[in-house]
């Protein structure tokens, strides 16, 4: 059985990898993931706010209290550089590279052009095999047009493309008006793949305390469907790599994502909940499924139910909508 796949130009032993999450913060997790059969490591995100904001926090809460009072000229151990900014991320990247033979995909998260994009270059220097750029952004102002937002994403992609040689994947939000068009544009500026999709922080209102609280729970298999359609629509219209991210909890979702057209499938929630070893179980189940339905390779599966290949393309398009409504009526 051939599980290999090509993602962002990287030859991977299987399509299954952990998505960006705190899992990668610990080296023992990395080793467990490798043992479980992960084909690559996607690191947790380095946030622009982290790069630009850490200095502020340290200055406000550590440095500010230095040399203030005779008995306490500081409140934290001296001689340590707390202004670690992205350095610790890069150190982590180096450590992960040393701990595993798997390709390591570093993740950079920001919304506007800024000094943070420089770190793509540093990530490349530190040994990243690819970069996943996350431009999570939610438009909040009335004077922001959808075109501006798309332009900004493209601008970031162009900037990073110009500064690194390694492959770039863009992790996108599901809320673009014309995602296929945007992805096609990204392909023209040299992006090597897209990750579908970001999970969105959504506010919650506490009606007891009147607080607005940001909430982000773990995904559920329900979340997969949004991804399946996008994969199926994109598979035949662009050439870049497609990764599915969000809603993959078991082999069933992996199968679906591959059939819709994914080159790679990222798992997060299941690993956070049940531990890194879970990835191995999913892989085993995937093989069992492939065996059962006589697939000998992942490449046979990839896109077998894409928009073009789907016996009923309407299912991905507007007809699906009508039919669903019909279902409810009945």
């Amino acid at each position, binding site marked *: 059985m051939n599980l290999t796949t090509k993602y962002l130009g990287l030859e991977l032993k299987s399509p299954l990898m952990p998505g960006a999450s705190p899992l990668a913060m610990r080296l023992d997790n990395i080793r467990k993931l490798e043992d479980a059969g992960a084909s690559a490591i996607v690191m947790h995100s380095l946030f622009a706010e982290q790069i630009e904001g850490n200095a502020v926090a340290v200055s406000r809460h550590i440095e500010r209290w230095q*040399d*203030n009072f005779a008995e306490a000229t500081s409140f934290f151990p001296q001689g340590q550089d707390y202004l670690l900014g992205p350095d*610790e991320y890069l150190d982590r990247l180096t450590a992960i590279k040393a701990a595993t033979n798997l390709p390591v995909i570093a993740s950079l998260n920001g919304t506007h052009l800024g000094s943070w994009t420089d770190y793509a270059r540093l990530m490349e220097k530190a040994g990243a095999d690819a970069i996943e750029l996350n431009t999570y952004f939610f438009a909040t102002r009335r004077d922001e047009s959808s075109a501006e937002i798309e332009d900004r994403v493209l601008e970031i992609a162009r900037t990073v493309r110009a500064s690194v040689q390694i492959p770039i994947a863009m992790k996108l939000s599901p809320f673009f008006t014309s995602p296929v068009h945007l992805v096609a544009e990204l392909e023209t500026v040299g992006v090597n793949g897209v990750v579908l999709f970001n999970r969105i922080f959504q506010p919650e209102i506490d009606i007891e305390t*009147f607080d607005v609280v940001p909430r982000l729970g773990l995904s559920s298999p329900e979340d997969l469907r949004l991804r399946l359609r996008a994969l199926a629509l994109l598979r035949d219209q662009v050439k870049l790599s497609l990764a599915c991210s969000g809603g993959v909890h078991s082999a069933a979702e992996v199968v679906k994502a591959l059939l819709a057209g994914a080159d790679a499938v990222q798992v997060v929630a299941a690993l956070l909940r049940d531990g890194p070893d879970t990835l191995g179980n999913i892989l085993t189940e995937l093989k069992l499924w492939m065996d059962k339905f006589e697939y000998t390779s992942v490449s046979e599966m990839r896109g077998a139910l894409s928009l073009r290949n789907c016996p009923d393309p309407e299912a991905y398009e507007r007809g699906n909508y009508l039919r669903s409504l019909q279902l409810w009526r009945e």
Partner: protein
Amino acid sequence: MISRPVPQTATLDANEAVATVAYRLSELFAIYPITPSSPMGEWVDEWSAQGRKNLWNHVPEVIEMQSEGGAAGALHGALNAGALASSFTASQGLLLMIPNLYKIAGELHPFVLHVTARSLATHALSIFCDHGDVMACRQTGSAMLCANSVQEALDFSAIAHAATLRTRVPFIHFFDGFRTSHEVQKINLLSDDDLRALLPQGAIEAFRQKALTPDRPSIRGTAQNPDVFFQAREGANKFYDAVPGVVQELFDSFAVRTGRAYKLYDYEGAPDADRVVVVMGSGAETVAETSAWLNAKGEKTGVLKVRLYRPLDANALLAALPKTVRKISVLDRTKEPGAIGEPLFLDVAAALYESDRVGKVELVGGRYGLGSKEFTPAMAKAVYDDLATASPKKRFTVGINDDVTKLSLPYDEKFDLETDDTRRAMFFGLGADGTVGANKNSIKIIGEGTDLNAQGFFVYDSKKSGAMTISHLRFGPKPIRAPYLIANADFVAVHHFPFVERMEVLAQARPGATLLLNVATPADKVWDRLPSEVQARIIDLKLKVYSIDAYTVARAAGMGGQINTIMQTCFFALSGVLKRDEAIAAIKYAIKKTYGKKGDAVVAKNNAAVDAALAAMHEVAVPAAVTARFSRPPVVAKSAPEFVQRVTSMMLANRGDELPVSAFPVDGTWPTATTKWEKRNIALEIPTWDPALCIQCNKCVMVCPHAAIRCAAFPDADKASAPETFKSTKLKSAAAPNYQYSIQVAPEDCTGCTLCHKVCPAKDKTDLKRKALMMAPIEPLLAKERENFDFFLQLPPAPAALLEDTVKGTQFREPLIEFSGACTGCGETPYLKLLTQLYGDRLLVANATGCSSIYGGNLPTTPYTTNRDGRGPAWSNSLFEDNAEYGLGIRAGVDQLAVQSQQLLKELAPQLPAEIVNGITAADQLTDAGIATARGHVAALKKLLPALASDERAKRLLELADYLVKKSVWIIGGDGWAYDIGFGGLDHVLASGRKVNILVLDTEVYSNTGGQRSKSTPLGAVAKFSAAGKDTDKKDLAQMAAHYGHVYVARVALGAKDSQTVQAFIEAEKHPGPSLIIAYSHCIAHGYGLSAGLDQQKLAVDTGYWPLFRHDPERAAKNLPVDIMDSGAPKQPLSAYTKNELRYQVLFKANPERAANLADQAQKAVDKRVASYQQLAANAAAPKPAAPAAPATEVKPNN
């Protein structure tokens, strides 16, 4: 010929310099933090955590102990085991080590203790310098080597380590606390080879051979009897005899290698001097400079610097004195009341007496510099001048005005001997504005980037919020000695303009000096803002004045509110220390060095700030005459009491040095209630109140750390006389109809922490961000609110019906701690405020040394205050380690008087109206009403007693009658005291069963000394001495105490459940035996903005980190469960709490692997802790036969 290695220079303070040597020459440190030595321990701990190697390519271990006593024990053990051990301490810490110093010396272990000499607490605590501590060790058998400067401290630390190995006599290496320990100087460093060259061959091997080991068993610490003890004790004599020779040999070989030559007793001055001063410590430098100046004027003077104080080599000392000497003055930086003279004086006297000079030399002795009193050339000159008179004072003091015993020498305050080749700069900064940090940076830039020498010394004030820092910087081509503050500054910078209006910032400005002001006013309007005195001084001294609006420049340059780079740039541009272009280049180079790693953008931003600063700085035109029509406001209000006017106001004006001896209480007993006279005006924003929105919950009053926001309930009628802008509304209470309710801020005392706004639950329904309390800029509000607050203070107390034992009810009571110098947003003080609201009128406080003793008792002003009747907390601090015992003693003492008063009342009862006697004995003094009743009867009793004066017992009862009213004794301190150094005593006091209340303000680190780990520090948090994150769990003091059974215990967190806090304070006091309240106290050492302190408290509880718990033995009698858990099951993972605090988060940056591991462990520990509390509560709730017996309801002393 030996070629001398090129010395590397650096700008360091002595603490860091000494630590670099001690670290390289030791294998083990057992330490305990104490000011001003703490940084040495912190340095070695950090280097150890970083894996730095010592001279033998080995990483020394650093063990933080629970006290200096513990550290000394551990050191003694390590030495016996054969490990090279060292430590650092000062003051009371050194005293706690004395028993082991005798042991270490008695057993001839090579050992060096580096001491930053500091005053001992007597009539008051002082963190500052004198030699009281080291002088208390001169009899221990330790050798004592004194360094007078930063360079000498570095050099002598190496000499001491080498000498102890050669002689086997332990060494105390000491240097002046703060003056030397914290002075930044450009010095020559010592390389590893320099150190290696000093180490004696074979000494370490010999030391190892002495190790206690079962492989070569021996026994130490025997008990010896009268037959042999004496002889055996004398056996060590020859080791002491050898010390001076060895130290001089080491000095000599050190000189060959480094070019820095020292003698045991270094004479400096005229070879034919007739007058010589003998002195130790930094003061010797001042005397030497002064002597040189006098000699240049033709006088014949000299100074003998004593370096090896023990063993004192009398012959060497005398030999160092010129034969021509006729008069000697010995200066001691210590006081031994009742002695013929101070120790160094007595030593010199004895040496002279035994020499052929006896009778040929006149000897006098004096004290100087106690508690870091400045010791200036003027004072040194006064000593020489007096010595030149026909009959010099035999015993004297210098540096003060002793108008009582007339011991002090007069001196000329104007005398100064600084020369024009040094540039001297002074900076008045606001704590937390980065001024000191920037100055340290400037010293590095100049000291390490040029051939110039540099010196920096920093003076901090006694407040923790809104404090002033004064930096004293000197630069010059020649080495800088001058261990005293600047008296003639070429450059004065005032980084916080209100200082200009509050104090004489130009007192030290020399004619023609440059003044730089940071002020948010255009340059052409700055002159108009200066008070007339300041204008006059500028004109008289022909100062050049420049101004900059640094905050605006900083914000525009994207630096937030950080003005340090901007002000530093102005200093470089104006001071003339370096050429302007050179200076700017140097500062930009430093920026690149500091921020280069953070990327070009950060560097560019800082460089832009430098350019912007230069562009925004303007010269202020100085007119020929004073134009201001206003002068500086008086330091304290005219209505202040006489003592405050006469004494406190001088201290507030930075003129405490001018006060004579007679101004002070002789025994350290000071009046309370003085913070109210110090209007600090540090808030930029204060709360404004919307009566319409307010739900009158009083939570804002409850959480205010400075008692700066208060509530009142007063009769409607009183409203008529209110100022126009005073706000009030109908009181929502059926218990008091026709009453008004008001919330009022003390605008000049508020620190702007925002906790009141944060806690306010009353939100505007249609705009939920608007609350009943909103912060607003103070400027337009100040005058009116000042008037409103004055009116507020005149209002009558709230009616008794409102004073329920609830959050709301307690806050209607008058707080009797107010306007302390605690940090903005302090997490401790709200608990103390609550305590004083409940029991302030009958409260005695024993306060352990720490933050709460500093904001509670640090002069010039103290916050504990009195109520309308003149009653209020009586507060006292004994030591750090003994507070529980101290409080127990207070309890026992009070009980003695109480029992006697009760007995006398009983005996005199037949002669007194039964109504009064019964009224007192029957009053339920567990309630406020009962206390009031008892007080009423006691007042009546006191009126009647004089009529019975023929009965001696009536006289005695009159003296003691007030003890018929119950007193509430509270033992208060932080976790460093309760969990560590004072735990043994605390445990004993809990076990005693006596009626004392113990309040632990738990900040989970030693906050006052800068965040060192205690046993309360949580798992996974970074603290000093746990730089890599603490890997053991916090000690559960509550459960330990609860196990006694008879102790009332509560864990509280005011920000999570204020009602439980109030309940605990009330139950604790009602409990007939000992009580212990452990109060979660957020702290700046946790690394987040304290405006979120209450949210963090809530998270601490919601995550299960801080279970709210009460153990109330009294409930057993009512068949109620004695263990109560007041918080529910955790609602969130621990990380929801820890993610907001840098003490946890920095570890995720520094060592994510370890951080994640510790975080896992911490979560498990929390799960376990919650489960154990739940289990306790569940067990308690289950029916069971009998609870442990509580002790007798009132414990009485044995009569």
